[in-house]
């Protein structure tokens, strides 16, 4: 009898463990950032539409900010744009855009047409700063705290729910 029962018990136990693992993984298909808790990578990039000006990590020293990686070729960026505008209107935190592998005229036209939620927009034409941040697909949104550490990364479209659940508590310092 046991020779039939034992394999079934083992199978059910294994299936149960795998099922729980799949069900409990909160962000399916997205990977945690390798940078969490570590200092944000340094960057010094041209400011979009402002010849001669730059956007640098150093200028945010001592101030928390949100970095949103976007591009005009990115469909989900269009989807999240209204959410970013709503977030910007609350003035909860400095919002920095990283225009990723994009063309300046198109990016400027996009911001003109749909509104500009960003306090600063950095141009990462070759995608090198994005590689330093471990970006693997736009849009991605990072929160960097006042000490310059990356506390959170959201991959994919920003939604009001994600903003409320993951970003606001970290901006207020009640969640790490």
């Amino acid at each position, binding site marked *: 009898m046991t020779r039939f029962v034992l394999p079934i018990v083992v199978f059910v136990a294994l299936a149960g463990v795998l099922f729980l693992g799949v069900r409990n993984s909160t962000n399916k298909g997205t*990977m*945690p950032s390798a*940078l969490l808790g570590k200092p944000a990578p340094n960057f010094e990039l041209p400011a979009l539409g402002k010849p001669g000006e730059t956007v640098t990590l150093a200028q945010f020293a001592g101030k928390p900010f949100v970095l949103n990686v976007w591009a005009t070729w990115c469909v989900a960026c269009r989807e999240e744009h209204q959410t970013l505008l709503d977030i910007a209107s609350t003035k909860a935190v400095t919002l920095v855009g990283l225009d990723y592998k994009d063309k300046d005229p198109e990016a400027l036209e996009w911001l003109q047409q749909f509104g500009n939620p960003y306090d600063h927009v950095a141009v990462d034409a070759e*995608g090198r700063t994005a*590689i*330093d*941040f471990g970006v*693997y697909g736009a849009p991605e949104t990072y929160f960097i705290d006042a000490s310059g550490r990356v506390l959170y990364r959201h991959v994919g479209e920003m939604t009001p729910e994600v903003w409320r659940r993951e970003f606001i508590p970290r901006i207020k310092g009640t969640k790490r």
Partner: protein
Amino acid sequence: MNLLRAALLCLAGIALPAFAIDTTVLPNPELQARYENLTHELRCMQCQNNNIADSPAGLATDLRREVAEMLTAGKSDDEVRAYMVQRYGDVILFNPPLNSSTVWVWATPLVALVGGLIVAFVIVRRRGRLVATDDSEVRDDLAP
């Protein structure tokens, strides 16, 4: 024979586009070999079941450029791997390193092999005992 030739041509047709993805040429054959080795063991993060050598994705192209530049600048293979892991995590390596979070990945085949050997050993021993102590059925079959 014609059929075989047709099949080979079909296969060549499938394989050809793969050669067109990466046309990077490094200054010398030694660097080229290391470049090809590295790009085949780094995961394309956009299309996770492919390596960056065989992927036309934008990020894969950028990462190939980084690998080529680092090798040309005289960096070692391990420095290139460390650069990638620092940014994307261990997941970018198709050969995961042995550490506390990956120990089961490496241990499972060994556990399964040892477990299988134990099961096989027990079964063989039991069967061996059966034959040695009870041959009555064999004699019945032989009887006319």
